[in-house]
């Protein structure tokens, strides 16, 4: 019996490894091509020698009329994504806590409004939002503001706060803790795993946004890395090496961030289902 289950486990692991190779192949391919000499890109999965030329081209600032544009776009991505993630967390925390733990007039209304927005296709709002934000075109604020609050993030907090017993918060109130104290000393520490998931997910979603950034920030100095790759995609068609390297710069930071925080995910996913 024992040897049979061992054999079964071994077979399962082999299947898993084969599937993982398939699943991660595009990423390995991307990484290896980004290190390939320019005459060998796309000629083999792993080229005969590796070089940093593609990365030097992007990060060395050796461009002609738009020197440093790749470095700049990387910074733009960061400047846009970081505040978005922070604002989503703060708003999610505030709304989540108040809707579930405070008996204020209008909490039902806010909950209904959230539900309505959650399932509302945002595409309808695209054209008017663009017209409204046009005066802020090519400004970070115009890129950040319309996408900085997420109903998904708010619901993550609501669903988590619901699972926390009300007594904790009542007791804190009786002990004379103010609302701010309750939030910073009780709500924040208790929702740590949600905060990590919301922060990373919102950061990633914003980092990978294409359409809105393309519309609002067409100026090459304001383009995020995601947009810059898209706009350079066709003209750089004969230089795939740097495009692969740019894709690695776009993808790797997100993957590393999530891998570092993966221990919070197990806890987070199980209540996401509720």
């Amino acid at each position, binding site marked *: 019996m024992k040897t049979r289950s061992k054999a079964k486990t071994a077979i399962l692991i082999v299947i898993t490894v084969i*599937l993982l190779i398939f699943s991660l192949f595009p990423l390995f391919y991307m990484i290896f091509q980004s290190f390939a000499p320019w005459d060998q890109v796309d000629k083999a999965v792993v080229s005969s020698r590796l070089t940093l030329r593609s990365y030097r081209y992007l990060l060395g600032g050796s461009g002609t009329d738009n020197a440093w544009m790749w470095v700049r776009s990387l910074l733009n991505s960061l400047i846009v994504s970081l505040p978005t993630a922070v604002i989503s967390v703060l708003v999610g925390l505030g709304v989540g806590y108040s809707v579930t733990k405070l008996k*204020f007039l*209008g909490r039902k209304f806010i909950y209904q409004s959230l539900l309505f927005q959650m399932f509302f296709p945002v*595409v*309808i709002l695209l054209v008017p939002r663009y*017209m409204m934000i046009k005066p802020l075109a090519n400004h970070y604020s115009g890129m950040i503001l319309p996408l900085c609050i997420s109903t998904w993030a708010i619901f993550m907090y609501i669903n988590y706060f619901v699972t926390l017993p009300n007594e904790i918060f009542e007791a804190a109130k009786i002990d004379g803790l103010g609302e701010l104290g309750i939030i910073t000393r009780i709500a924040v520490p208790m929702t740590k795993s949600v905060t990590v998931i919301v922060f990373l997910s919102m950061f990633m979603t914003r980092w990978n946004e*294409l359409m809105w950034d393309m519309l609002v920030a067409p100026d090459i100095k304001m383009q995020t890395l995601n947009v810059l*790759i898209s706009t350079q995609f066709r003209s750089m068609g004969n230089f795939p090496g740097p*495009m692969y390297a740019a894709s690695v710069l776009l993808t790797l930071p997100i993957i590393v961030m999530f891998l570092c925080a993966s221990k919070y995910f197990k806890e987070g996913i199980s209540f996401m289902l509720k």
Partner: protein
Amino acid sequence: MAEKISQKSRRDNAAGWLLNIPYLAYTLVFFLIPLVWAIWLSTMDWNMMSPDKTFVGFKNFTDLLHNSKAIAAFVNGFRYLIPIVILCFIFGLLLALLISALPEKIKGIVAVLFFIPYLTSGVATSVVIRFFFSYNSAFNIFLRNRLHWDIAWFQNPTTAFWIIVGIIVWKMSGYYALFLLAAIEGISPDVSEAAALDGSVGFHRLIHITLPMILPTLTTVIVLAAGLAFGIYTEPYLLTGGGPNNATTTWLLEIYNTSFTSFKSGSGAAMAIINALQIFVIIQLITWLMNKLNKKYGV
């Protein structure tokens, strides 16, 4: 006592509204106003710049019936929906079942590794796919020389379409597997033990125990995948431009082009409304169907 209660509720009211101000302000500015504006816009003929706006009533909507691109986007909504929902469902479930059968120690790390494709930007994958399938890539040279297959992947409507479906399924399966895995792991040990005692194993157990137990999560996954299928934009924008022959176009792509390339804002708004209605009806239909299934087979 009464005073205490009113004091408490006053405190709750103040704090509650204060904490919700940012959300309410955002909703007013970036949700309600654009919503009314969009409906108004859909009845207008306006190029977003000139001072002339003409009220055209439902003309923007009826014009869509003669717009081959809009019709293609509508039809493609279903063409994308069906394979993406089915394949995401199958691969997500298979991955979840596989991971749940692995030894406890490596479950977590394997689940995370399968989740990685979800984190990649559609732009980065499009770069890889574009070059990987380009005429002079090692892959295509291999196909030509060894198998005598000469395929222009992005010029052929069928291959172009399936490449985009493949990218989406590749990207999402590991993410959905995470949901399903959590549901499978959440089945109580009592149920699993009872099933084992009854001799319910393998396929029988999957059909009669596991699937009914995780039906609510399956519903979530199917609804999410359906919503996702209507939100495809990046891949056709970068890889095919919606072609060849509109085979890969989507609503988002057409709305973007109509509004911001042809500057027909009214027509773009009308498209967005039709798209939203299509999504709404489909999601309602799927939810209704899954609820019926849940009543019949769920626990």
